[in-house]
């Protein structure tokens, strides 16, 4: 991760061009915006964007990742710079760990449990305690990743129902749906999940880890960067569930921020901007890290999470998934 540099959120249709070895963003209205190339950590694209090869090669040379979200907020893909952090030793260990059933299942279990506890933390309710207890008892008996994912699914279903009870009727999810999300609540969660995934992918790029060699999702999601999906799990409650609850209780989101159709929903242009602002602010929130003895932003927590996996590979330090301590 570059020491300085910001994430730029492109919420309107625009065109990205290279100019004087830096970046110029042209928007349909108004004058072009020039962004210093050294100030870009990554780009998150919410809308139609035109980009050409010379701009891409400049972005690649400066280590900038471009994340593309589709209309429904799913992760549509990303452009990432050529490998520069590779280390065979780390990747080899990563493959060994992921191929060893015992170790992989142990990591999967801890990831699922941490996620469940984080949800409980994010929703801040004891309604989830029985479900959490059931999950805790069921996990050690799971011998395959599918079984673990099944247990997670059971817990998630309860958690969504509990979350629904805290939301205004129009924002309720009535069961999680994706591709496409069927209502406003689901659209919001989809967007946030895609963003968290994108943030982790950026974090992983600054380590030698291979983002496609994961532990939990390895068998079910064959075409995604499963390690990013895995590591995103414990962070999702911190962003998606918590922000949805907060946006609802503070009446920050309005029905007009969503474009709802029969059986599908997505964010409107204004809604996208709101969410980009919300997430940007959330990512820069800092907490005191007891190990590092300094303030650390949520964004950096994801980077530290990726480094934990590096330490697991190189030093054999047991991997403990992220849990909020504050």
């Amino acid at each position, binding site marked *: 991760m570059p020491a*300085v540099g910001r994430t730029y*959120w492109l919420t*309107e249709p625009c065109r990205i061009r290279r100019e*004087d070895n830096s970046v110029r*963003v042209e928007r349909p209205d108004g004058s072009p915006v*020039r962004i*210093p190339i*050294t*100030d870009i950590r990554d780009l998150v694209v919410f809308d139609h964007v035109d980009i050409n090869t010379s701009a891409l090669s400049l972005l690649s040379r400066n280590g900038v990742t471009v994340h593309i979200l589709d209309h429904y907020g799913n992760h549509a893909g990303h452009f990432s710079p050529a490998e520069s952090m590779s280390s065979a030793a780390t990747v080899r260990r990563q493959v060994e760990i992921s191929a060893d059933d015992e170790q992989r299942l142990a990591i999967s279990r801890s990831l699922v449990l941490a996620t469940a506890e984080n949800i409980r933390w994010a929703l801040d309710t004891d309604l989830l305690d029985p479900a959490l207890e059931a999950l805790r008892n069921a996990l050690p008996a799971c011998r395959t990743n599918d079984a673990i994912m099944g247990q997670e699914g059971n817990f998630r279903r309860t958690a969504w129902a509990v979350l629904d009870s805290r939301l205004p009727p129009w924002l309720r999810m009535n069961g999680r749906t994706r591709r496409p999300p069927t209502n406003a609540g689901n659209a919001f969660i989809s967007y946030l999940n895609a963003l968290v995934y994108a943030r982790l992918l950026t974090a992983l790029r600054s380590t030698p880890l291979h983002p496609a060699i994961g532990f939990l999702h390895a068998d079910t999601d064959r075409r995604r960067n499963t390690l990013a999906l895995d590591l995103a799990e414990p962070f999702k409650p911190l962003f998606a569930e918590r922000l949805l609850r907060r946006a609802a209780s503070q009446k920050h989101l309005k029905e007009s921020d969503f474009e709802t159709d029969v059986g599908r929903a997505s964010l409107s242009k204004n809604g996208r901007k709101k969410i980009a602002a919300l997430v940007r602010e959330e990512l820069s929130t800092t907490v005191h890290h007891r190990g590092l003895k300094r303030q650390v932003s949520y964004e950096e927590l994801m980077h530290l999470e990726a480094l934990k996996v590096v330490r697991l590979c190189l030093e054999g330090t047991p991997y403990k998934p992220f849990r909020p301590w504050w």
Partner: protein
Amino acid sequence: MFVILVYDTAVERNPKVLKTCRKYLHWTQRSVFQGELSAAQYRALMAALGTVIDPGYDSIVTYTARSPDMVESTTLGVALGGPGDIL
């Protein structure tokens, strides 16, 4: 660090200085730039500018602060600098 850079150079060298600054800093006003840089980036920018200007005639002044929070600024009239990071 947070950097404010002001340049006053001969007309024929202005574009060169402008283009060099654009790679590192945000344009705020005619011949004024500002932005956040690491120490290394700051040195790189200064080195690049050093090769462009005529040290006998041109003048570039920078003001640095530890972070943008350390600087208070007010704008009267038109704010020429671009929007933030949500475009």
